[in-house]
């Protein structure tokens, strides 16, 4: 009879094997980046796909996040001090250091990460990935590296736009709901915020870009089993990227704090 622990053991084995394969993909990506010319045309196309297409949805997400932060902090400070205080400070710190990078990465993982996994997964099950080999190139060189580079260049830019729209959302609520003058809101921000606070959030976006793009590419190129497999790979790519972003965010923050960038 099978031991009760057998399924658990199998899960551990499968997960370790998958992590090993993932590390191999990362290694191969680094090696190809050294060895071969970078496909700039593909990279630019991916930048447009990931960046331009994700911009409206990330901007809207962050605008409303800024709005709700202003609403909540205004309500709380009003409750304690009878006047809404430091709305700009709360909104800007929350957004620039945490919510901007994290929510942008999560939204882009849901949008562009899913698209990458689905596209590469379909290519895999229709033998297009094999065809790349027979035509003298490699999926890592032709597909993975352009997507990784595009993510590394675009996600930080998207995050800057997100930070900005988030703060604007906060301003909108501060003005309309709490009648706070723009100059007060603005001073709440610039009197307290330093460049290193921005750098703190900005540096994290590179880690998120790496995670989301590599996980999505990995799930895509290892897809098996037809349309069902593509669906499964896409779901897994999104779920794993999102969870990883949130988990790694804690450790990245802890590391940056230890380095004094906080």
């Amino acid at each position: 009879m099978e031991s009760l622990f057998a399924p658990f053991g199998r899960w551990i084995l499968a997960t370790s094997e998958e992590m090993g394969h993932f590390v191999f993909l990362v290694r191969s990506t680094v090696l190809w980046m050294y060895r071969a010319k970078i496909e700039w045309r593909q990279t630019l196309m991916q930048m447009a796909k990931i960046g331009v297409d994700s911009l409206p949805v990330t901007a809207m997400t962050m605008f409303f996040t800024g709005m709700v932060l202003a609403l909540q902090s205004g309500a709380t400070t009003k409750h304690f001090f009878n006047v809404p205080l430091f709305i700009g400070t709360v909104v800007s710190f929350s957004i620039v250091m945490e919510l901007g990078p994290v929510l942008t990465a999560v939204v882009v993982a849901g949008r562009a990460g899913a698209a990458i996994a689905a596209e590469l997964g379909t290519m895999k099950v229709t033998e297009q990935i094999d065809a790349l080999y027979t035509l003298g190139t490699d999926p890592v060189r032709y597909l993975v590296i352009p997507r990784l580079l595009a993510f590394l260049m675009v996600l930080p830019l998207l995050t800057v736009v997100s930070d900005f729209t988030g703060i604007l959302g906060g301003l909108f609520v501060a003005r309309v709901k709490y009648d706070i003058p723009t100059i007060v809101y603005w001073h709440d921000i610039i009197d307290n915020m330093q460049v290193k606070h921005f750098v703190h959030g900005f540096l994290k976006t590179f880690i998120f870009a790496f995670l989301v793009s590599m996980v999505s590419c990995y799930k895509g190129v290892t897809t098996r089993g037809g349309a069902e497999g593509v669906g499964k790979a896409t779901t897994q790519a999104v779920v794993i990227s999102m969870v990883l972003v949130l988990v790694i965010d804690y450790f990245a923050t802890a590391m940056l704090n230890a380095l004094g960038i906080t």
Partner: protein
Amino acid sequence: MIDASGVMKSFGKRTILRGIDLTVETGETMVIIGGSGCGKSTFLKCVIGLHAPDSGTIVVDGTDITKLKTEAEIANYRRRFGYLFQEGALFDSLTVEENICFGLKYLTDVPTSKYRQIASDSLALVGLKDVEDFKPSELSGGMKKRVALARAIAAQPQYILYDEPTTGLDPIMSDVINDLILDLQKQLKVTAIVVTHDMKSAYKVGSRIAMFHEGRVLQVGTPDEIKNTADPHVRQFVEGLSQGPIKMKLKEFEADEAHDGARRGKA
């Protein structure tokens, strides 16, 4: 010349190739026939290095693919092959011309200014015209196969590997593809391996035919030898009979019973 000996390949617990010995002479068209899952396509993928055999050797013009280690060496080895995939495997984000010229960038030093010409020449060889700017999704099944064939021959390979070139096509289009394979053979003087289970196609294009069964080579011979074979397995396959020594599973339990019966008979 392609010389394979003792090629074995398993995926997990499933053993697909159990020791393939097969020699394809330069200039001939070797047709590999056999039922689904007998390892035909797996063997083809081993030849071009998409799968690494577990054991055995595949020597192509003195180079043993199983001994190549680095990706660069394998890429260099693949240079001499054109591969026609079962479903074409055209890149659907690229146009027909970009598909055909895709390999030129990586396999050859041809300047990009010549790509358009090469694309239309390759298309002409497979009997197509003025489709360079179409996307694969705008083409019919037969046209896709032809474009895929044009892509396989664009970089002028010495060897062409065809994975079920006529599967999924109507009988007339199948025969057109057969004619194309013969035509390319004459014009480009390539060595070819054709994997198929379409016997009409096998007899027409093959200089020799090899029958695979359960991961081994059952018989190799000219089309006439295969047609008049004494081997009951090969005879059953080429005549397309459900009754015979090859047990196709109509129902799992029937096949098992037949198997048990045979075993009991032996005992």
